[in-house]
């Protein structure tokens, strides 16, 4: 009896939220001339934080911008308003897959936008392929992107792989060591979960090839909130560089702990979260010189306009890693639709071969992957700037040693 009522409650709750969403979607635009764009994303559960920072605000910003301009331009020059169908996958891949099926078969949406996260994007890839929808997997970091792109022809992988980021970091550190600013020792910690494992497995050979000695190499379980013991060990290790392949809670916890125990390595590198706008607050304004994944070309006018638009629309600046890429992927979609319309096959072909003008510059995918990315970024004068690849247009030169906290 109780089991039933709980299920009924969940059902009712889900139906209510669905109803509310569809109503708000249809109230504004009720003619059948709209373009239906659907997505399922984590609005509750553990993935809601990541989705709420990187993905959802960009979807909302893009849709409102397009609709304000009169709608999505079609090849014949007409414009059609966007109607959004949104589902909450509650951070569960089962719910996500069901929602994608529903979007494809019952809502018959024209375009499906991807969910947030590597796992979620992998979970829906076979399904998207079966229904023939192009999948712009932006927030998926995987070394197997070339394989996936070959297996699912209409999938596009836009955030590189763990190996790329590790090699980029090794590059940046090698330059500093050869210049004599840091010693050849590295203290490295990683979270024992997908992303941390991927990166640390890429980093070990990359550091070894570059001639670095990793003097402290430990992993910690997901959910660790106390880093005092780990950072004390790293502090005593004699390494000039501290590298953490961490998730946001870990990145933030380590920053606070490093500050409170006055741990001042010459290079302080943290994983996901370092490029989030909230980081400046976490570091209590002392983020200058902290390195992390990603980065943006802070001098670019398009990026500056995008940051301002994002603040106006979402009330907060975007993160400086995947946010700009997410928005760029939507611009690609917009331009591809304008060129070839909504036919999935032609759309996928255009995305794969076309050249697009986006906020991150001119984009052309290589084998369905975006390769022109920032691997390492650093907080400099209040902005998180790309520093590696050092020869990429707009690269800033890294500040090493990092000023003390």
């Amino acid at each position: 009896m109780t089991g039933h009522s709980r299920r009924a409650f969940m059902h009712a709750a889900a139906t209510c939220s669905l109803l509310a969403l569809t109503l708000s979607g249809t109230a504004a635009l009720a003619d059948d001339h709209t373009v239906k764009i659907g997505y399922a994303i984590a609005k509750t559960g553990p993935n809601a934080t990541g989705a709420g920072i990187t993905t959802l605000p960009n979807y909302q910003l893009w849709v409102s911008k397009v609709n304000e301009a009169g709608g999505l331009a079609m090849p014949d020059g007409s414009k059609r308003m966007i109607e959004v169908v949104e589902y909450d996958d509650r951070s569960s891949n089962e719910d996500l897959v069901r929602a994608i099926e529903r979007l494809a078969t019952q809502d018959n949406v024209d375009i499906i936008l991807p969910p947030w996260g590597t796992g979620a994007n992998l979970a829906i890839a076979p399904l998207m392929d079966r229904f023939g929808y192009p999948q712009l997997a932006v927030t998926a970091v995987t070394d197997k992107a070339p394989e996936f792109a070959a297996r699912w022809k209409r999938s596009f992988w836009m955030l590189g792989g763990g190996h790329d980021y590790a090699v980029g970091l090794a590059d940046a550190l090698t330059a500093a060591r050869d210049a004599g600013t840091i010693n050849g020792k590295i203290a490295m910690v990683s979270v024992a979960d997908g992303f941390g494992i991927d990166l640390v497995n890429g980093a070990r050979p990359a550091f070894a090839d570059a001639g670095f000695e990793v003097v402290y190499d430990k992993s910690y379980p997901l959910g660790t909130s106390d880093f005092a013991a780990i950072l004390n060990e790293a502090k005593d290790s004699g390494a000039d560089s501290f590298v953490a392949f961490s998730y946001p809670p870990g990145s933030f916890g380590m920053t606070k702990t490093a500050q409170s125990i006055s741990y001042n390595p010459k290079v302080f590198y943290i994983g996901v979260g370092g490029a989030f706008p909230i980081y400046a607050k976490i570091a209590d304004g002392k983020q200058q010189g902290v390195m992390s994944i990603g980065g943006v070309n802070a001098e670019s006018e398009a990026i500056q306009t995008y940051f301002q638009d994002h603040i106006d629309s979402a009330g907060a600046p975007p993160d400086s890693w995947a946010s700009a890429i997410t928005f760029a992927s939507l611009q690609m979609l917009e331009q591809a639709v304008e060129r070839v319309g909504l036919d999935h096959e032609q759309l996928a072909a255009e995305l794969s071969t076309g050249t697009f003008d986006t906020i991150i510059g001119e984009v052309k995918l290589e084998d369905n992957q975006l390769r022109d990315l920032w691997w390492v970024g650093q907080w400099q004068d209040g902005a998180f700037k790309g520093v590696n690849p050092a020869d990429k247009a707009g690269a800033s030169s890294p500040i090493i040693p990092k000023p003390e906290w």
Partner: protein
Amino acid sequence: MTILVLGLVLGGTYALLALGLTIQYGIARIMNLAYGEMTLAAAFVLVFLFNQLGLPPLLSILFVAPAGYVTGWLLYTVMMRPLVARSGGGGKLELDSILATFGLLFVVQGLLLLFFGSNFTSISYLDRGVSVFGVTVALNRLIAFAVCIVAGGGLALALTRTRWGLIMRAVALTPGSAPLVGIDVTRVARQAFALGTALAAIGGTSVAMYQTFSATDGVVFTMKALVIVIMGGVGNVPGALAAGFALGLIETFVATVIDPGLTLAATFAIFLIVLLWRPEGLFGRRA
């Protein structure tokens, strides 16, 4: 020495989190799965007070804790009381309360997401290091440790030395016979639930001081608290304190001497051993 100091401080924060749950489960007989969410709600309120009104966190504990008490009181009256009345004092209450608070978990999480958004939240307050016997410890963690000692110690004393504590223990031990000696079980259970919520709120305020959190982190706190409660013995305040300190020491020891990757494994290995050998908890009474 490093291990001892860091472990005790960490353990203090763990024990503080578990105190409220052990009272709610031990005395009010309600397995509150939304416990972590209540902790988080208090943390968000503290951050809100700090950012909007500039209220120092230590001062806002004085507001947040009574607010937690009132919330718990209302929750019990509105939501738990019908369950208790229906169950007739049997094991059914446990099942019903788990299901009800499981739903409550999503409601509170939804409200938090609605009001405070999904972003990470953090304040910088007393984030500087303090030297304790030559070991640098963050001051805010030290405060959490002190709050834990005061709240936990005070509670343990009140439970063992006062008449009020005697009544509480009577209800915890034999809720069936307590009415025979003139104890209003409903009132006591309501008090216990409200007190537990107030302790959750205090735990939340200390979490807000030293940790970055987001609206979806509640489950993590519930799990940690649950492990400690079961290890220490349900409804046993000194047990929860001891189990919390033990966990902190073990985690720090394992992280320093063996490998940080094994902290979780060590925690659950010990949890398993306790369950196998002393299912009533380290300090629980045998049934």
